[in-house]
């Protein structure tokens, strides 16, 4: 058999099988991600994947590129240092909703504000999987989690709205049901200069799905199919997620802003003239 699985050359095959549960959506996002890299034309040696901690945090460890499994919540500031030190690298932060938006929320908003040239992919399974299914900042109201045994009464983040408000230049949301659209969004995000953000709603059948009586992964995917409404260009204020009701998906934001590095170089060139020395690689 000469045709290889398209995902294979991006995987550390000597680490397979992975640790993710049966039906977990993270692997699905990785399939789409690797096909997006292929189509983007970005060489593997110019790509770095940085993850935080958690189930999605393990993505970096399975990717056969320069890959960094950092600390809980701090993938973005690590990626910030990496990108500023090695500007010719395409830096992708690949992590989960708890990692990126609870413990790491402060870093997300500031990286978006600065418009650092990086792509952030959030696999949003609405829960902390690795630690046993606790409440995250994206858990919908009423949802059961191990630390909200009677249901969640906190209002969750609307991630696309947050990303847009803070300055992201590209914002899209899809579910793991929408594999071709997800792949396309990831490719667009990879090729977008500036802070790009892709949220992927993804099943955690072992914890979130089971506790909330959604069923197994296949059942949850079927709810994505029936609940999703594609609205490209939707107002991100109106894409909140609930336990039920529509899941608005699509490409919401695609705009231009000067990146952190371009701003820095232009600014110092203007202020310092030929006294300014650009950082060498």
């Amino acid at each position: 058999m000469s045709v290889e699985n398209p995902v294979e050359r991006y995987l550390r095959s000597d680490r397979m099988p992975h640790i993710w549960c049966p039906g977990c959506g993270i692997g699905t996002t990785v399939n789409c991600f690797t096909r997006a890299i292929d189509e983007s034309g970005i060489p593997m040696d110019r790509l770095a994947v940085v993850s935080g901690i958690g189930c999605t945090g393990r993505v970096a460890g399975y990717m056969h590129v320069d890959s960094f499994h950092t600390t809980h919540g701090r993938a973005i500031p690590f990626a910030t240092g990496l990108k500023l030190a090695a500007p010719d690298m395409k830096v992708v932060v690949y992590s989960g909703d708890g990692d990126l938006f609870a413990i790491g929320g402060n870093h997300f908003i500031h990286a978006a504000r600065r418009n650092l040239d990086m792509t952030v992919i959030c696999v949003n399974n609405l829960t902390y999987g690795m630690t046993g299914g606790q409440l995250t900042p994206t858990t919908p109201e009423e949802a059961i989690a191990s630390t909200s045994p009677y249901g969640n009464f906190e209002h969750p983040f609307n991630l696309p709205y947050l990303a847009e408000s803070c300055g992201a230049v590209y914002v899209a949301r899809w579910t793991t049901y929408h594999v071709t659209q997800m792949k396309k969004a990831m490719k667009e995000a990879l090729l977008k200069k500036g802070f790009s953000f892709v949220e992927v709603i993804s099943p955690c059948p072992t914890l979130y799905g089971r506790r909330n009586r959604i069923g197994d992964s296949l059942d949850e995917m079927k709810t994505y199919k029936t609940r999703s409404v594609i609205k490209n260009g939707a107002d991100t204020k109106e894409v909140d997620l609930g336990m039920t009701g529509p899941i608005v998906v699509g490409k919401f934001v695609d705009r231009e802003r000067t990146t952190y590095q371009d701003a820095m170089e232009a600014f110092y060139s203007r202020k310092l003239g030929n006294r300014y020395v650009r950082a060498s690689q």
Partner: protein
Amino acid sequence: MVIDAERCKGCALCVEFCPTDVLALSSSFTAKGYHPPEIVRPEACSGCDLCGMYCPDFAIYGYRL
């Protein structure tokens, strides 16, 4: 279409979302006790690779010759 049954964890996403109904869950077991998919309508496969995109375990993919 290629199946690496030993990577499969039997979630059946490939079976459900194959647009041409090429697959069915097999009654056989993998070493870990999962039912992997099997090809029941090979002539119907278009090589679209949706199965490969869905598979959370990198255990299946389609290709066009």
